[in-house]
């Protein structure tokens, strides 16, 4: 991909053909790109997702993790391109192992919320800006999506801000928004100016507005949605309903005209969500979009107890669905134009907790997938697996991240086409870090 050329081409096209002509041109070109976020709600334990299997570190791992340690014989071995030592994946991840070995997938290690680079001393002596409420589900779910490390609130998301910046460069001919969730209302997609679409598909179609028999009733229904009550919440409800009707028309019309995807998807919540995204990708031309950010999610990662079973149950459908989704992007011929990545509010303590579980921690390992990814490798540094060691925020194996969410997001955003001069608008902590592109795309 020649990222540098795209915006020039887009601007040139707008100049030459006017708005509508440009959009048709863009939609038919190979310039389309999509980012797909899979949020692992609950805090996926990175320590059992990606495990170093050199003898020294595996020994540390099995000693400290005790009941939570996965036997080496069960781990799925991988060889990371630039790393001299072997690693293993959680046994629930055979599809991820396959994608990794085919270099379609990479791990970014020890990523987490950071306002600025942080040493252990700076954290422990509170000498630097430290993200607020680090171990709080709600706040950290928000921060991973907003990168606002000083706030407990769900303000605008980095995906939404990116859409704000890019909507004029990559307009949609139908008004279908850049940001679209198939998993409820996602903070990541909240923009300041651009709307986000929160779909909740049943099967592969949206529920449709039931039209009352009398035309006058339908007309009055639409009219009443436009009345100004002067009440903020009433107006918001009317706006939501209005938008629902428009999107419903757009998506269902588009889906009716699309040939069905043949790639099979697992019948799991995340499988269905990614199938819905694939279906929406298949009608990207009809929807007139050039850039899209999708939000999906999987549940069940808050493994305070019974982790061996519960993490297996939570990870397996993600692994299966990600491979299916990758295959679907191949079927659509856009596997180099779609990049999928994971987020999760935090990792879990390296030291186990009572009840065969683990508690809330910090830096974790995340996956990026797609043909554009420089796959088969690990990016970032790997924490030292010692309680109270150099990576530990305290004594429970809570790794201080060595890569910030802002850097992770900015790398994805750069590939997506966010102009470099707007990176710090979208990722306000980015200027605090010397590396703004992690190189995995």
């Amino acid at each position, binding site marked *: 991909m020649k990222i540098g050329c795209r915006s020039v081409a887009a601007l040139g096209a707008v100049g030459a053909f006017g708005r509508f002509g440009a959009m048709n041109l863009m939609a038919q070109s190979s310039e389309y790109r999509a980012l797909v976020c899979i949020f692992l709600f609950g805090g996926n334990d990175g320590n059992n997702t990606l495990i170093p299997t050199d003898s020294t570190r595996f020994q540390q791992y099995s000693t400290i993790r*005790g009941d939570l340690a996965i036997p080496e014989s069960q781990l799925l071995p991988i060889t990371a391109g630039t790393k001299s030592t072997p690693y293993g994946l959680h046994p629930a991840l055979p599809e991820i192992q396959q994608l990794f070995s085919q270099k379609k997938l990479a791990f970014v290690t020890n990523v987490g919320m950071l306002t600025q680079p942080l040493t252990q001393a700076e954290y422990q002596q509170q000498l630097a800006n430290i993200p*607020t*409420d680090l*171990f*709080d*589900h*709600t706040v950290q779910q928000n921060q991973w999506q907003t990168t606002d490390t*000083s706030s*407990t*609130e*769900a303000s*605008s998301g980095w995906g939404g801000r990116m859409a704000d910046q890019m909507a004029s460069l990559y307009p949609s001919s139908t008004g279908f928004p850049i940001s679209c969730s198939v998993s409820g*209302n996602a903070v990541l997609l909240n923009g*300041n100016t651009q709307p986000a*679409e929160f*779909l*909740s598909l049943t*099967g592969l*179609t*949206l*529920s*449709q507005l*039931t039209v*009352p028999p*009398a035309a*006058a*009733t339908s007309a*009055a*229904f639409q*009219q*009443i*949605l436009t*009345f100004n*009550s*002067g*009440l*903020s*919440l*009433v107006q*918001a*409800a009317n*706006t939501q*309903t209005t*938008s*629902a*009707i428009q*999107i419903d028309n757009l998506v269902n019309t588009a889906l009716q005209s699309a040939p069905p995807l043949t790639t099979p998807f697992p019948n799991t919540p995340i499988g269905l969500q990614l199938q819905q995204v694939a279906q929406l990708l298949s009608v990207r031309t009809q929807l007139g979009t050039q850039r899209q950010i999708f939000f999906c999610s999987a*549940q069940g990662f*808050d493994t*305070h*107890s019974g982790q061996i079973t519960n993490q297996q149950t939570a990870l397996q459908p993600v692994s299966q669905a990600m491979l299916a989704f990758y295959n679907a992007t191949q079927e659509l011929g856009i596997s180099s134009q779609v990049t999928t990545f994971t987020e999760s509010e935090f990792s879990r*303590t390296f*030291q*186990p*907790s*009572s*009840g065969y*579980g683990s*508690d809330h921690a910090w830096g974790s390992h995340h996956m990026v997938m797609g043909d554009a990814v420089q796959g088969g490798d690990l990016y970032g540094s790997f924490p030292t697996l010692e309680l109270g060691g150099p990576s530990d925020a305290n004594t429970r194996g*809570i790794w201080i991240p060595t890569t910030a969410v802002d850097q992770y997001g900015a790398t994805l955003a750069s590939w997506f086409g966010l102009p470099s001069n707007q990176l710090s608008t979208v990722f306000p902590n980015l200027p605090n870090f010397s590396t703004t592109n992690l190189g995995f795309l």
Partner: protein
Amino acid sequence: MRFIRSYRFLLILSAAAPVYVWQAADAQTPSGNPTPAITTISPNPIPYGSFDLSVTGSGFVQGAAVSYGGTALPTTFVSSTSLTSTGTAAPVVGALMPITIVNPGSISSLPVSVKLVQSNALIPYASAFHFLEQATFGPTPAAIDHLQQIGYSQWFTEQFSEPISPFTPNAPDITQLQSDLFYNALTGSDQLRQRVVLALSELFVISGFKVWQGSSFEPYLQILQQDAFGNFYNLMNDVTLSPSMGYYLDVANNVKGASGELPNENYARELMQLFTTGPVLLNANGTPQLNSSGATTPLYTETTIQNFARVFTGWTYPVMPGATPQGINPNYYVGPMVAWAANHDTGSKTLLNGLVLPAGQTAQQDLTAALQNIFAHPNVPPFIATMLIQHLVSSNPSPAYVRRVANVFINDGTGTRGNLRAVIEAILMDPEARDSDSPTTWISTGGHLREPILFITSVLRNLNATATGSNMLMGLSEEMGQAVFYPESVAGYFPPNYTLPGSTTLLGPEFDTMNSSSGLYRVNWINGVSWGGTSSTGVTLSTSSFLPLAADPTGVSLTKAVSNTFMAGQMPQDMQTAIEGVIASLPHDPQGAVASAIYLTASSGMYQVQH
């Protein structure tokens, strides 16, 4: 898609049903009798109870009868311009009664709609209506009338002593408990308790995703029901020792650190962060305390959490009847959890505000001291006040409102802290809550989106619908984004800090359940309801009482009635005009006119947001 099918079904039904067609009045009819016309009705409005009615007009003949909503009343013919009649008025959906004069030969006048009122009202209709929207699962005609008669104070007294509508003990599954929730909401007389229990279940969250058996979930609901009108400390204590909560957040079988493990932090964290204090220090009015650089101050550190986690060690499930007590009892959910001394961490612990629990205390001593430590924290009153106000009254209460309620939490007037009755009463009787009563005092940022459960129950109660104990209303709620008793996480169905779409400053927690699909589902469900269907089994609903009002060709009567039914009679003028226009365009389709009026009213943002 399920809905669309049922809607078609309903359409067929309505097409097959006898169609009520208003015949435009002719001056002379085939029977030879004139068409009567009404000029005045007295009294107007008609008070509930027995009434003597005088009707003046023209064209009355011997044998003419006053028809009261379709029922012929005993009528005395006085003259061709005057009739008298007697009857009894009772609360009805719409609070509006169409009256016609019917001459022999079924020659009917145009209707005149007369408002029915409670003549001994201590509270205006609209005020009672709005209060009941906040305090119950929705105003029914009878509930409005009752409150109007007895006033707020007596109403609270009654509600505080109403027997508890139970959830099914040993329910076979959570589905039964879901049915129970809707059954209690639609038919239970302990409305205030059930409404507060819903709010509490969204504060002290457990979820069927983990606590998946009816028999493990129901005892928890019992605790919330029994403690809803008690002291907050007792509620917190009973929730903490509940085996259901113990299973959900891992206090059950949390043992002191051994063999490289540390006590489980799950409950310790959520108890403070989500259930009682929130993560940052609050002012007495619920706003966060900000330091000189504008940053919030954490209420606890990771170390505090670890200390609380050690407090909550040594607890296990209650002993099953006949079983031998052990350190790790098998899962059992009847009664509170029990302590097992050997599994309790007896070291000293440092809690909030530097409180140190000495070493050597028992599990019970530590737990009591820790709960008292939290209960005494200044965050609790504004935090709980904000949460309950958001669920009952408004997503965006003013800091002054929060402070007033928090003050009652701190001291109910008798020196007691945490009196939930007093707190609930303070929330509902606060001037800011009562600003809802009149459009002239509506707050522009006020109200809250009706969450799916409340949207469903409000619509059905407004229409005086009933449900059986095996209703399937939970299916609708799930489609609307709220799977009853299955919140996705301990943060609940919707996080309290969810921002109102399109706003950066206002909150709209319930909007987290509303998206392109669930939003349409809400509207589509209303469309079904408007034709008299509910898309759900076990519910009895009728909209036929509106039909006679559709005979008013101006649409004014029917519009007034739906406004009384859903909007306390306060529908904005622009909506009234739009709906009257639609009704007027359907002169030969009373069923369609009624459906349109209900659809346009209950689907609107004005209704979807309780304000």
